[in-house]
């Protein structure tokens, strides 16, 4: 069975030079992968490349063995979801933000379920009253949790997580980890790639460890 995501010979340029080049990576069904590396090594750019958010300077991506056409990006991103390190919420309430993805053509066959949204927020340590809160009244950590809940309710196949707990207090971070673990365990094929600087955290959330440094992407021992 082909991997969920297969990146072949990826290359990304930055500031006139190659940040990384000729790097390949697979995300297989059920895999829990961590990605570490020094600041500025290109972890975020690698994640953005895997989410197809930036044009690839070199290389190609396959989804379950299938080559992607330019028009496939929205459908691809509905399954391979990227969580930004500092996600942006739109003007309006938390509920407006959780409803937002269902107004997009790619998710239109699905319906927003308020009860499910409230359930996800509860798993993240917030009660349903948060749904009515305006975006402007949220702290950075709360915005991060809402963005995570917004992704989890869409039940993607792969999560590309860019330091999802970096802005959270220890208790909220633990709840976020559990929610992600719950999402992962709910279906056998689900996988994630989790960027973190914290070796302890990487050991707890991943079975496979990658390190990006000096343009090299290498497997690390557990």
């Amino acid at each position: 069975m082909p991997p969920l995501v297969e990146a072949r010979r990826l290359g990304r340029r930055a500031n006139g030079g190659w940040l990384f080049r000729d790097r390949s990576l697979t995300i297989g069904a059920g895999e829990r992968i961590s990605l570490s590396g020094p600041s500025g090594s290109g972890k975020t750019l690698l994640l953005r490349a895997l989410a197809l958010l930036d044009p690839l300077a070199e290389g190609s991506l396959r989804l379950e063995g299938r080559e992607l056409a330019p028009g496939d990006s929205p459908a691809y991103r509905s399954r391979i979801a990227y969580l930004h390190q500092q996600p942006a919420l739109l003007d309006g309430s938390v509920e407006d933000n959780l409803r937002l993805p269902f107004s997009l053509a790619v998710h239109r066959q699905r319906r927003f379920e308020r009860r499910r949204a409230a359930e996800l927020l509860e798993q993240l340590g917030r009660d349903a009253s948060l749904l009515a809160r305006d975006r402007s009244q949220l702290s950075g950590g709360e915005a991060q949790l809402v963005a995570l809940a917004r992704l989890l309710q869409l039940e993607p196949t792969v999560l590309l997580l860019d330091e999802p707990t970096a802005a959270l207090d220890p208790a909220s971070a633990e709840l976020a980890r559990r929610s992600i673990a719950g999402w992962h365990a709910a279906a056998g094929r689900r996988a994630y790639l989790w960027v973190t600087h914290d070796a302890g955290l990487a050991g707890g959330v991943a079975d496979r460890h990658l390190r990006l440094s000096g343009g090299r992407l290498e497997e690390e021992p557990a």
Partner: protein
Amino acid sequence: MTAGYLELSYGQLGIAALLILINAAISLTLRLELHRRLLLAAVRMTVQLLLVGLVLEWVFAISRWPPVVDLMALMTIAAGIAAVRRTPRRYPGIWLDSLVSIWAASWLIAAVALAAVVEVRPWFRPQYAIPFLGMILGNALNGISLGLDRLGEELTGRRAEVEGLLALGATRWEAARGPVRSAVRTGMIPIVNSMMIAGIVSLPGMMTGQLLAGVEPVQAVRYQVVIMFLIASATALGTLGVVLLGYRRLFTPAHQFLHARLRSVGRR
């Protein structure tokens, strides 16, 4: 004095110029640092209008279309360039987008005006073609410039939001719709405002000119209504056109936002 209007002498022009000099003196006294720009603008306008007066006298005297079309093309190119020069955030291809938009919108509307509305015969009669196109260009230029300005500002200020939408599976249009809508609306604000207040707060320029030239008020009003509709249509078409062209340059067919293409060049 002629039958229709009062002729102006250079002395009378001088009295008007004196008012500008008084304003410059006030700026100098209060150290507002406006006097140089004010005088430069006044001199520039006078020279430009005197030159265009000479050119128009020459063009009005000939009865062939090529010189008229040449002049119209020059005016259009100047407007396309001026629209971008006022825009502080630019992307590769913005000059072409501005030129294409202003050219298509203003020439299409001017053609409709000359051929179908006013029914000028022959169609290139410079007394009609040049002022009509000039008025259309002046306003379309404003719309295009404001639209481009707002598109750049919105996409820069709301980059995280746009990319967040793309990451959720939005198409490029779904992600850019808010900034695009805002840019088109902004471009339309001046002409919509002008139409709202026309006749109440101000008498528009063309109508004023015709009244001063002795045209009957009802005829002057009809011309003004026609020109307002033409200007609004051209501004809407030009603004929408340039914003959509910009959108296509800043978003790839693979639904990616090329934010790095937007570069700040400083406001002029």
